[in-house]
């Protein structure tokens, strides 16, 4: 399982990265591996508001659907439309396959450091 030191994580297995007030969100390597081959992703629309700890989209495998939660409260600035045509990139490169970028962030969920997240995953297993 790959965990990147420069990212923050949630207990619901999203990663998040802040750059100049814009927060980029994706699914962790651990999550993609647990979910198996992903076949589709449902994303919000640009301009939608998302809330920390609430569902903003979902990912589909052949036989399951899993919710994806937002680590932050704010407004969707951009969505990764490439995922709609190539969901397999989430499996192949989870830390490149970002889902959404959020601006005007007013709050975040409890965020874990890389070490904390690794420890959390280990405790869950």
């Amino acid at each position: 399982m790959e965990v990147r030191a420069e990212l923050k994580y949630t207990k619901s297995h999203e990663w998040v990265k802040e750059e100049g007030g814009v927060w980029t969100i994706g699914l962790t390597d651990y999550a993609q591996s647990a979910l198996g081959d992903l076949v589709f992703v449902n994303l919000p629309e640009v301009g939608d508001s998302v809330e920390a700890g609430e569902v903003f989209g979902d990912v589909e495998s052949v036989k399951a659907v899993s919710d994806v939660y937002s680590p932050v409260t704010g407004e969707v600035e951009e969505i990764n439309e490439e995922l709609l045509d190539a969901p397999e990139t989430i499996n192949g490169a989870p830390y490149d396959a970002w889902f959404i970028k959020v601006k005007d962030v007013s709050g975040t969920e409890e965020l874990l450091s890389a070490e904390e997240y690794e420890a959390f995953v280990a405790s869950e297993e």
Partner: protein
Amino acid sequence: MLIFEKSRPGRGCDLLPECDVEVTLPQEKDKREKKLHLPELSEIELSRHYTELAKKSHGVNDGFYPLGSCTMKYNPKINEDMAALPGFTEIHPLQPAHTVQGCLEVIKESENLLCEITGMDRMTFQPAAGAHGEFTGLLLIKAYHKSRGDEKRKKIIVPDSAHGTNPASAAMAGFQVVSIESAPDGGVDLEKLQEVCGEDTAGLMLTNPNTVGLFDKNILKITEIVHNCGGLCYYDGANLNAVMGTVRPGDMGFDVIHLNLHKTFSTPHGGGGPGSGPVGCKSMLVPFLPSYVVDGEEELKFVKEPQSIGEMKSFYGNFTVIVKALTYVKTLGREGIPEASRNAVLNANYMMNKLKDLYTMAYDEVCMHEFVMSLADLKKKTGISAMDIAKGLLDNGIHPPTMYFPLIVEEALMVEPTETESKETLDEAVEVLRKLYEIAETDAEQLHQAPVTTPVTRMDEVGAARHPYLRYEWQD
């Protein structure tokens, strides 16, 4: 090969005579411009094409089909004959009432018989399938609360062991779904039920025996808790084949039910329909029934209920499917109905007992018409999953049990032999399952590869979903 690949321009069948009146066609602005591109084949090619497709399909007539929750019993041939009578198939649904007395009698008599079997007061036959019936029944509940000005009742309680259609139907009917965790014995957790019941409860959806194949002994208590908080009780008839003739949903406290005529009442599944999902209800829900009910003594007629929820689809339901079910109920009658379910339960218990020293039963007690095995241990031990065992069965001419359902059992295989299978068939299936277990322990790789004798092997479902290819593209 696809039928399109067999097509040759200019081939076809000689079917219709020339026009015997002056030809009229739409004006230019409404005339079809897009080329019509249907296959063109001679009759022999067509006929062989579908014979080939039939060979690559597996029905109840091909062998044992212990698909849990689906009641794949034998489909008697007399049913088909009766449904094909021109006196039924050649009747227009909008003929005057006095010319369709036979059709009305079919509906009336089916209603009488099935109401007696289920303990309901009236029944509508309009719903075309089980899920359609669920949606109908929930709309009855919604209309009932609304008529009493009780509009705060927005929640439908559904156990986590329920069929996926239950929560989906509740959502379609505009309800919020409250899922409650099952008790360790697989039944409804009374305390949890009590906790979630309140003045916002519209009702509870339940199947009994439940989806783990056990009869919930607390059933009267369950329905009482729901009624006490002002909710109604919905019975999912998927498992009625376990208890018909012994217990009636109406006597267990249920207010509205649906039946699956294509499960319990022997009409064929047709590769996924047409089924029929009649909805029965107690008197307080009758005013809201959809479409028409059949009334009258001397001459039967269609009558619309005063506060009817409206129409669920066109006309009166999948009529010839009802004819098949009526034929079946008439054949079985008062002794045959309980005899069918009693033997379904015997067959299930027999199979379970012949397997339980080897396979882990999710609940090791007397089951009803089906039982659930958990292959979690086997998977841990050998890497062989419920899916692998299922695929191994395919190589032995047996349709697999329902896989990965109910969701509360890990690596579940749900086995429903039905009453129409003989001891010899059950013994054979037990042998096959035992053999597969042995292979799992000795040569797991062999099972991972299964099936190998079928027209195709395991399919790339991921590829299919990632890059949907949903129709043939003509080359020209």
